[in-house]
């Protein structure tokens, strides 16, 4: 972290250090999970769920949380949102949507004021809590009808909410968390276009026996609680939930957040933690800081390489049955289905975030390799062959996550071998030496090099 960057910040503490302290606080007090994710070679490990949920909160991203019943999927999202957005936990819990097939737009988003309709014949729209909540959490999103999933994702994407011709437009976007059980009866599959909207997906981790014991005893989340304030907030919003008053409501929520932030910090201090929860403007600065983080050349090179290796080389319509005996069967194209443009964007943003988190100068290979499986495993189909290869291997994550991570490790190894050739190939392309490039593509035979010949 250079001096200029530090000087630029308003506080005397580097933002990433402040946010890492929030992580420590969550991990030791609010949500326990094994710290299985290493970022970089020498640095320490983190609980991936807590790390990515905190990053998603700051980036206003979208995260899918997988886990079994009662493993803390919703709890983690609610507690972390309450802490980062500095609103009482009860308020976040009240605005959490529970997925079930009977959910309707009226129950989720807004409804007509029936009294006004009856008395005055006027259509008055009353918005629900959801549009005003600083974080959107949908519990068991796969139990929600697909149309509703789509509607909410679209509206959260832009933070523009519409109902019966009235529209609420908010300046800022907000984070979105969907929790999901592994498939069972009563759940519907999330369709690929919807899965693709989630930047990252994390799983609840296995628990160390000591942590398990702590969970058994019960986690004290009173540091985030204030039922009275939450009730006041809900009452205020329910009274002021007209479109023309949306600005006032937003301002009110921000003001509550400003004051409740101090309450949380004070409570944390009494527990021996020096926390500084970033306010709205500071959070915005953090987001911009992350977005403007530089990418290393190697980051771009590996992404270029991976992007080409994943295509099916026997035709644009991928079909894993074609992989039998195929010349390219040893590449990632025979393991996973595709990497969408949205996925590449998520990978880039979250890699920057992880580099920022770690206090590194730029987002490089280590950050990319850390983020890639989390950004891809939920959105890509995995071939049966790959699944069967890894099914029997001991692991602490799901088969799907492991399969994607394992395939990506293979790509990285190949890329390391081809890296210098890749740079040479780009130089040839830059100089317009097409014949040389063609020759190189033929000799190397890897899809990336062949792709450079495409017009």
């Amino acid at each position, binding site marked *: 972290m250079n001096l200029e960057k530090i000087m630029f910040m308003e506080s005397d503490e580097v933002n990433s250090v402040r946010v890492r302290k929030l992580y420590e606080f969550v991990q030791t007090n609010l949500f326990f999970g094994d710290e299985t994710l290493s970022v970089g070679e020498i640095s320490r490990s983190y609980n991936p769920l807590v790390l990515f949920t905190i990053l998603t909160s700051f980036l206003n991203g979208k995260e899918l949380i997988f886990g079994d019943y009662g493993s803390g999927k919703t709890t983690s999202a609610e507690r972390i949102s309450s802490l980062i957005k500095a609103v009482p936990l009860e308020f976040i819990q009240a605005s959490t949507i529970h997925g079930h097939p009977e959910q309707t737009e009226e129950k989720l988003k807004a409804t007509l004021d029936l009294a006004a309709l009856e008395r005055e014949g006027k259509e008055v729209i009353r918005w629900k809590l959801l549009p005003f909540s600083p974080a959107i959490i949908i519990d068991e999103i796969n139990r929600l009808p697909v149309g509703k999933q789509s509607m909410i994702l679209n509206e959260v994407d832009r933070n523009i909410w519409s109902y019966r011709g009235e529209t609420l437009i908010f300046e800022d976007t907000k984070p979105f968390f969907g929790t999901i059980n592994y498939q069972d009866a009563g759940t519907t599959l999330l369709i690929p276009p919807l899965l693709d909207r989630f930047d990252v997906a994390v799983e609840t981790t296995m628990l160390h026996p000591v942590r398990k014991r702590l969970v058994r005893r019960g986690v004290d989340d009173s540091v985030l609680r204030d039922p009275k304030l939450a009730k006041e907030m809900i009452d205020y919003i329910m009274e002021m939930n007209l479109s023309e008053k949306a600005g006032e409501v937003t301002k009110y929520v921000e003001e509550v957040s400003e004051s409740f932030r101090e309450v949380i910090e004070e409570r944390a201090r009494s527990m021996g933690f020096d926390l500084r929860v970033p306010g709205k403007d500071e959070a915005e600065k953090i987001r911009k800081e992350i977005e403007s983080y530089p990418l290393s050349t190697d980051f771009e090179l590996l992404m270029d390489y991976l992007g080409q290796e994943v295509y099916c080389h026997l035709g644009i319509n991928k079909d894993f049955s074609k*992989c039998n005996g195929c010349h390219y069967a040893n590449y990632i194209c025979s393991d996973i289905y595709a990497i969408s443009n949205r996925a590449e964007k998520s990978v880039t943003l979250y890699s920057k975030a992880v580099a920022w988190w770690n206090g590194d100068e730029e987002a490089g290979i280590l950050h990319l390799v850390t983020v890639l499986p989390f950004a891809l495993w939920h959105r890509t189909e995995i071939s049966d062959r790959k699944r069967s*290869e890894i099914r029997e291997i001991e692991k602490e994550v799901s088969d799907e996550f492991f399969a994607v991570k394992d395939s990506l490790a293979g790509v990285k190894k190949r890329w390391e071998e*081809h890296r210098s050739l890749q740079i040479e190939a780009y130089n040839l392309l830059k100089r317009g030496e097409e014949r040389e490039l063609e020759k190189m593509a033929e000799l190397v035979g890897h899809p990336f090099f062949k792709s450079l010949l495409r017009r």
Partner: protein
Amino acid sequence: MEFLEEILEETFERARRKLYYPPIERFEVVDGMSEFHFGRRTKLIIGREDLVANKKALEGFFALNLNHWARHPYDLKTVLLEEFWLKDFEKRSEIRDLFDDFVSALDLIFNRGIEEVIDYYRHAPTRGKQDVLMRAYLQRVSGERIVKASEEIESRVDELMKIDFLDLRRIRLRMNIVRFAKVVDDLIEGFEPKIKVDKIAEDDLRQAMREAAWELDDKEYEAFCMFIGKKTDTEMKKPRKLWYMERARKYSIYIQPLAKTGSIYPSEIKEFEFDDGIESYNPVESYGKLIPGIAKKFVYEDFEGISGGMADAVIVMDSSGSMTDPEKEVSYAVLGAFVIARNYLENGARVGVVNFSNRNISLPPTRSEIVFDHLILYQGGGTHLDVHELGEYLKRIGTQVDLIMITDGGIENIEEVEDFISRLRSLTLIWIKRYVNGLKEFRERIDRLKRIRSVDVFDVENEADIPSMAVRRFGDFYG
């Protein structure tokens, strides 16, 4: 021992580096002969006998084998095609293996500058006359001293010099390997090929055989399947059907979506207008009244991207005597029908078939491969479509299906058919006009059907017309 392993490891990596790191990352030394397998997690299997006590030679040996993946034969399909092209030679596998080594070695020397392969041939044991020939040939083309060859061998080398081994275009490859076989056939003795077709995994073999359909015509493909099937335990039943199925994979056709997704939901409430269907009326939002400006309706929209929106299809297939017999030559009717069926089946829909000539042979909608059997079935009789039976068939199905008829137009009971079709809401008619274009009677019958408003007609004269076919959807059978 450890030292030897280190040397092998280091030499293997050096060879990989020189070949720009092919994705074959491991090797295993075995007591038997060297082998090469295409497929996932490929590793080189190196027979202990092939390990030569010279580092450069060893590197050449690794490179030679790695180049089987990188350059030639490149994939399993090529191996099978080479075996097939050599079907008249008893020692075809050995010849093919030797030929592949020739190509691989020459590519290493001339395209990649990896001359260690010459060292390999200098140090490797000579097991038969074919090995002497190989060395003599390499000696001639490289100018390096490798072997002392007899006059007879040298004269064979003269013949081999006429072959351009590095021209790997399919048509040249086929000629080259046959010419090569004629030169080396009687020299082959005492060696095991590295790639043994009968040892290839069933799934890999099947897929490679399927892919070969793209490169062979229908008759050749049939012969190919029979030949490879005999040689291995993999019997490809009905190769002609398989050929059509593989060819059909080349084409996607447009199927007009009934809905983007297959399920709709009330997305919006709008003013009810008097020409709207009463089923869209929303009594709750309209206060139970039907007054202009107050009455409301639901507007339905698709769920984003849900699959399952495909209706089932029924293909009414003319297999009368005027149509091409798919067993004798390429039938574009069958190919077109396979393309349509495949597009529906791959999207999770079911396909039914009514194959008609003198009688209707009907198959209810199914996702089974049996659909293709009914489509390729050739009755070869008159052209009479039993419309009563077809109507009963559609009634039995009960649900809405997409109806596609494929015919050359020679329908004898055209009045009945015309009457039946005019009562349908929509029909996609594929007119196979290759052989009947000039026949006035056939054209007139098709023109009669074309005049029906609900009929979309696509003309197919040759294979290039197949991708232009499209299937229009309809809501109900009858308008």
